[in-house]
């Protein structure tokens, strides 16, 4: 609770890596994931135990193709990222819905830019473009970095939920998860949140475990059930 939530925290412009070479190049995370995953496959391939009489192509054949493709893509992505770093306050500051559009790919017919490195809203109507530009101006104030404190509350809350679920039982663990995510979303009423969280997790327990018979752990509260 030591981190009060402010609407516009001005210190956040000086985020990790601001002004250094790394700025705009955090996209290297994607090739890193790719390389990491390919290495996971590589180690798995090397240590795989395969019976001698297996039909060729054996179980390593297809994953090996995937692994090679993974390394090649990691290198290409890294090159693309190094050559054209993310513009500091354009690309990533597009509002969430626009990101969403991108995340689910743009179809053939709109056949927009072949390179995704530049934002492409040329096809959109003028008013939408204006709205985009405004949102960007708004965003430029605190730059494009992600809010890792919020993220940590969300992800940490889920990790805690997974850890204590079987011991503490559904009602307590799910309430904790709810509370952490609510907090990560900027809620500033911890006590009220707690009552909402407990009510919600209890209702879910009643509906799914008691009525539908799903197997949810009752945990330390479960003596009587």
């Amino acid at each position: 609770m030591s981190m009060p939530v402010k609407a516009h925290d001005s210190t956040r412009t000086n985020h990790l890596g601001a002004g250094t070479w790394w700025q705009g190049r955090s996209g290297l995370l994607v090739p890193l994931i790719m390389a990491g995953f390919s290495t996971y496959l590589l180690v798995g391939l090397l240590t795989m135990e395969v019976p001698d009489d297996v039909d060729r192509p054996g179980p390593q054949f297809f994953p090996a193709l995937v692994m090679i493709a993974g390394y090649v893509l990691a290198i290409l992505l890294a090159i693309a990222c190094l050559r054209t770093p993310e513009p500091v306050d354009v690309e990533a500051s597009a509002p969430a819905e626009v990101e969403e559009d991108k995340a689910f790919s743009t179809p053939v017919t709109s056949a927009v830019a072949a390179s995704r490195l530049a934002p492409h809203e040329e096809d959109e109507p003028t008013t939408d473009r204006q709205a985009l530009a405004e949102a960007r101006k708004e965003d430029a104030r605190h730059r494009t970095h992600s809010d890792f404190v919020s993220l940590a509350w969300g992800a940490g809350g889920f990790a805690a939920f997974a850890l204590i679920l079987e011991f503490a039982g559904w009602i307590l663990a799910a309430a904790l998860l709810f509370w952490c995510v609510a907090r990560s979303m900027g809620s500033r009423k911890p006590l009220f949140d707690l009552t909402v969280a407990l009510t919600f997790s209890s209702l879910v327990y009643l509906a799914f475990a008691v009525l539908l018979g799903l197997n949810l752990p009752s945990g330390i509260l479960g003596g009587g059930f």
Partner: protein
Amino acid sequence: MDALMSLFEGFTHAVTPMNLLWVVVGCFLGTAVGVLPGLGSSMAVALLLPMTFALDPTAAFIMFAGVYFGGLFGDSTMAILMNTPGQASAIASTFEGHKMARNGRAPQALATAAIGAFIGGFISCFLVVFVAPALADLSTKFGPAEFFALAIFAFVATSSVVADSVLKGLTALVLGIGISVIGIDSVSGSERFTYGVPELFDGVSLVTVTVALLALGEVFFIASRIRRAARDNTISSSGRPFLSRKEFGEAVPAWLRGTAIGLPFGVIPVGGADVPTFMAYGLERRLDAKRPDPQFGRGAIRGLAAPEAAGSATTGIAMGALLALGLPISATAAIMLAAFRQYGLQPGPLLFDRSPELVWGLLASFFLAMIVLLAINLPFAPLWAKLLKIPDPYLYGGIAVFCGLGIYATSASQFELFILLGIGIISFVLKRYGVPLAPLMIGMVLGPLAETSLRDALIANDGNWATLVSSPITIVLYLLLIGALVYTGTGRVLARRRQRAQRETEPVS
């Protein structure tokens, strides 16, 4: 008339008071999830999957049908009222639909969407009844080489043709295929990439990946940018959701054209309904430009009617393709496939012989779901928008809890929850850097099909690679694929050139 008789029998299975209740419950819940911002119909199916395990297979799938179609309705409701499409297939509806709503015609826009989805869905379901058995027959002619060609077609289409960055599309695809090879190899029985962890023997569950990618990743993504100024686009819609005779007359041809465009895409594996919806929108726009008083850009009813009908038509046929071929066209179909397997059923030609009452009951329930949806959406669509009054923290808190619930209820394992978290974080990173998620799903779903059919084909022909292109069906598929690549390649170059020219002539607004 065999098909009609079977369908009739299907209705007798589906129309029991209990099953009707499940359709209604499914439609209701599906719409509720679809309406939530950022969550689409495939998410609705994935989140509500565990709930159906308490039911018998027929009731479960009947409920699924309701959830799925309900999710689609919810997507377009939000696309129109809030300009936030829950799924790519609803994006085309936002263009004219949201404008109609902004011009004070929100109820009419919602009615247009609902009726369009109804028409597209109804026609496609009707076709499925006749086409599915034929498709099932056709698929018996498919050997490993043909299935491999189909999988490759889907891979390339989703990652390169449909996605806008080939590099990022392929990245997502390779990650998806990579995740799908984890687990015990079905051909040789050797452990792959499990590192001795027993939980990985069965591989990473598709449901876990879906929930992680689409729901948990979304929660993290939104959490990471809450300090950003939010724009509230919501448009309240009140008034009677009626179309005047004139509006109806406007929309009818668009509904029908949209349906016609959507139908063939139900069997083409390009990742679902987003391509046909955009094609339908594009066609209407071009037709509109030829009219004396162009309506597009001012909330054209046809620009909304066509994509809605197209999306729904594709969905209906895609369900038929799933049942008859066992081939999942979209992420949602893939989750349905996972659900079938959970009940020990394998969609495909044999399903029609082995469990006809289930197949025909499911087809019949599609029709029921359509009617129920029309009934609960036409009068109550504005009410759904009230769901958005839930404060964000509680909305996403609830979604996170449901992610945990869904995965724990299907797997009863802590380990699976950590996998969910891990993939959720990866999904956040991918979203953050604009990597499309759809190819990852398709890779995950069709990866095993591609691998086993490739190996079967090669083993059966002593490692002769020529066998992959030895049949007419495979040759046609590969030619189509090359054609699509060339077409989109030139299309992109032309579009860029046009945009550049346009930018030079038109001053920046």
